[in-house]
């Protein structure tokens, strides 16, 4: 039963990633694109964790944790760049 649930979850997250990609493409403002990339990171974390369950290994957990950290840092860096024209002042 977990296999069916995982397949359903993979389909949901893949559709969600496609929607985020669409929002990233059409914009219309820069902030929309930043938000799209941030949401893509969150979806990718969920995808990695589900893949870890499907494969039965907890190796992908470290990847998900790294993705969570770097997604946050990159979003903040991009926003700071737009706000102040510089990242570390």
């Amino acid at each position: 039963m977990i296999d069916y649930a995982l397949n359903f979850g993979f389909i949901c997250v893949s559709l969600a990633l496609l929607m985020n990609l669409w929002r990233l493409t059409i914009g219309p403002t820069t902030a929309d694109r930043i938000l799209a990339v941030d949401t893509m990171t969150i979806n990718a974390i969920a995808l990695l964790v589900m893949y870890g369950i499907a494969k039965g290994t907890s190796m992908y957990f470290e990847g998900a944790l790294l993705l969570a950290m770097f997604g946050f840092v990159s979003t903040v860096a991009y926003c700071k760049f737009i706000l102040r024209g510089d990242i570390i002042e």
Partner: protein
Amino acid sequence: MPFIVELIISLLIVIGGLFLLIGSFGMLKLRELLPRLHAPTKATTVGVGGVLIASMLFFWVERGHFTIHELLITLFLFLTAPITANLIAKAYMLLNVDPHTDLPPSEQNEGWATFDPVGPEGYDPSEEYEEKES
């Protein structure tokens, strides 16, 4: 693996996947950025949270020992989501909102922080608005 545990894990994965889909659909459907910011928070909390709790339960039953390191990701996302949303809203306002027409006066000695990080000496935005109205 007992049936009831399998049922709970499957339900958590299905709920998490649905919420991730709904969050991204909301981001595509809503009209402007500020309402749009509201949608992906569902994906962050319930979506990723459900999938991570499912993973925690799965490895607990499969390996036999209980670890909470999946909760680290949830904790980290809970801590960082408000900061991210605040910074995205500030970036949007800086680029797309005119502080003189779209925002009320700040009623302080300096303007709104996003537009005026360091207020000049003796700057009074309320005078500006009074001039505009008269």
